[in-house]
């Protein structure tokens, strides 16, 4: 145990992952959505993945367990989870990992559950397809998990259909379902964007506490930095299929290094005086195939200079932060400080 903690082995390590969508029409280009994503998740961590829609957040989440559309293809890279490379597994082996070791909580609980089956049927189906236990035992597991997510009167709720529960309660059920098989990792893809503010706060705190108490690693995907600010230990900022900045959430929010992260924080309505014009990030996120060798953020960045248009930034690593930006490149920093000194 002490050996493990002194040299922590990553639970999940994604290395240089490239995923593209192949087009049906030969004249249309293949669209690279993930363009070299690398990150690691350690056991028991709560990590947030933040970015605009179209940045590839959901595709990254589904690429880990290969739940994506048939037109998507992993072109390059590896996804190592508990010592095995998931990209090399056969479909049957992959099914042992999905749900069993990696649980998913999806965005909209209304469409995530089958409307024509009772919650009991769905929970038992999920448990029994992975564990060799009797129906009665599985039912006890399901009830226990429903109690953990604070569903009142779980015995009666189990017999009901999804439409008889409110959205907040349904999202609790999907969390219970994800936890039922005691996975090592839970991926929550915008678990609260279909919910209200009060319910949102409750679900996020429930999810983070349950994962913490059960020693489950959580990958929380969101587009709202203020939501994950207090619900995660580490934060990955994603832009145009790449992770542009990662670090401890607190220090990342207080001292954002990448211009995109800085702008993302500045654009929050909380950050400006009521009634004043809000800061807005100019322009739009480019698609992967439109980019040559330039930095993906160059066309929206107020600090962009020559290098940004000619070459991809390299990731510079300091003690707790990884940032892909030319501004933080030691060579650039040296030149700029030399220019500003005389």
């Amino acid at each position, binding site marked *: 145990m002490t050996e493990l903690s002194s040299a922590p082995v990553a639970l999940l390590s994604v290395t240089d992952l490239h995923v593209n969508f192949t087009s049906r029409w030969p004249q249309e280009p293949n669209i690279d959505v993930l363009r070299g994503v690398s990150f690691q998740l350690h056991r028991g961590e709560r990590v947030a993945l933040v970015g*605009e*829609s*179209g940045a590839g957040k959901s595709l990254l989440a589904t690429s880990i367990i290969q739940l994506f559309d048939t037109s998507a293809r992993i072109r390059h890279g590896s996804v190592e989870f508990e010592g095995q490379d998931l990209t090399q597994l056969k479909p049957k082996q992959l099914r042992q990992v999905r749900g069993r070791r990696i649980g998913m909580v999806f965005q909209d609980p209304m469409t995530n559950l089958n409307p024509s089956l009772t919650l009991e049927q769905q929970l038992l189906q999920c448990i029994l397809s992975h564990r060799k236990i009797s129906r009665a035992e599985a039912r006890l597991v399901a009830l226990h998990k429903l109690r953990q997510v604070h569903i009142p009167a779980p015995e009666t709720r189990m017999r009901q259909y999804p439409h008889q529960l*409110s*959205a*907040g*309660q349904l999202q609790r059920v999907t969390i219970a379902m994800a936890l039922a098989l005691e996975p090592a990792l839970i991926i929550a893809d915008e678990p609260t964007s279909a919910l*209200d*503010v*009060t*319910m*949102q*706060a*409750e679900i996020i*705190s429930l999810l983070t506490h349950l994962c913490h108490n059960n020693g489950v690693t959580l990958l929380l995907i969101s*587009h*709202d*930095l*203020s*939501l994950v*600010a*207090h619900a995660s230990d580490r934060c990955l900022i994603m832009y145009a299929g790449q992770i542009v900045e990662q670090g401890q959430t607190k220090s990342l*929010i*207080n001292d954002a290094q990448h211009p995109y992260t800085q*702008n*993302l*924080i500045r*654009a*929050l*309505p*909380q*950050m*400006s005086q*009521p*009634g004043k*014009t*809000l*800061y*807005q*990030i100019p322009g*739009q996120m480019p698609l992967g195939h439109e980019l040559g060798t330039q930095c993906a953020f160059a066309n929206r960045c107020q600090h962009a200079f020559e290098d940004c248009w000619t070459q991809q930034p390299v990731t510079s690593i300091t003690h707790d932060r990884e940032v892909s930006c030319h501004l933080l490149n030691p060579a650039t920093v040296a030149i700029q400080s030399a220019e500003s000194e005389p």
Partner: protein
Amino acid sequence: MTQTLLSINNLYKTYQAPNQNGAWWGLQKSSYISAIDGLTLNINRGETLCVVGESGCGKSTLARLVMGLEKPDAGTISYQNTEISSLSAKARMSYRKRMQMVFQDPYTALNPRHTVLHALVDPLLYQQPNLNRQQAIDQAMAQLLAVGIDPVLAQRFPHQLSGGQRQRVNIARALMVEPEFIVADEPLSALDVSIQAQILNLLAQLQAQQQLTYLIFSHNLAAVEHMADRVAVMYAGRVCEIASREQLFSRPQHPYTQALLAASPQIYTAPTKHHRLVGDVPNRIPLSHLQQGCSLQDRCPQAIETCRHQTPKLVPLTTQHAVACHHVQQTSSQGNDHEH
């Protein structure tokens, strides 16, 4: 001098609920859900009134009632002192031109088989049949420029636009007939944070240019704090607190408002555990009369005995602040007694 543009007076709307016991053959009495339960609200000309509340509190029903998409069961909605809720469809036409709506989900609010131009020209030609088609197209192009959309996109279909662009087209469509009053039902909820900023700025800019009055429904409190002049908090079909923006965000009085503010995520300050509400918005079934008194009583940490059997009324605390809560009214009257 503030002038009242729209006034809603003691409005009621009840929907028939599907029977919970599964008695589909109609032998049992069906139950009713009162979506709007005696709501009173005034909107002044030129202001932005934001209505906040959880889903199920009747926000969308109120929007539909104001726009005349539903008829109220009782109560009145007056537009510049003319009652409009009981008008016939034909008599209502002239008001439809003055009041327009921006719908929640920009993906479903546009017809997928109509181009952007088609979507914009249609309402204009419907309201002004004498208009020459070319004039209508010119106006549509001007409107697209006004909401910051490249006119090149006019021939595109909705699926070829991004979420932010679609919401801009929705706003442009609402503005085509030059209305003075805009109802927006959750205009930001389907959008990203960075796009939200663009739409908020656009709404503010259009309001300044065209002297628009906004009634905006939202549960995004950060955005509400940014754009509202006054804020009404709705719970279970009633207004439970209404105040100017500064008053509401600096001194929220109603326990429900306090809980909403506490639940709103803040980037630098950690969320507080006080004021947290448990449970859901109650199903408001008046026929069963299970619930007397304040509709928040089961979830409220400050509920007192009066809350169990008496429905609180909206009572003004100051000129700009009114609250419907027994607890607040009691403590504030005690405070006044001490002063005397």
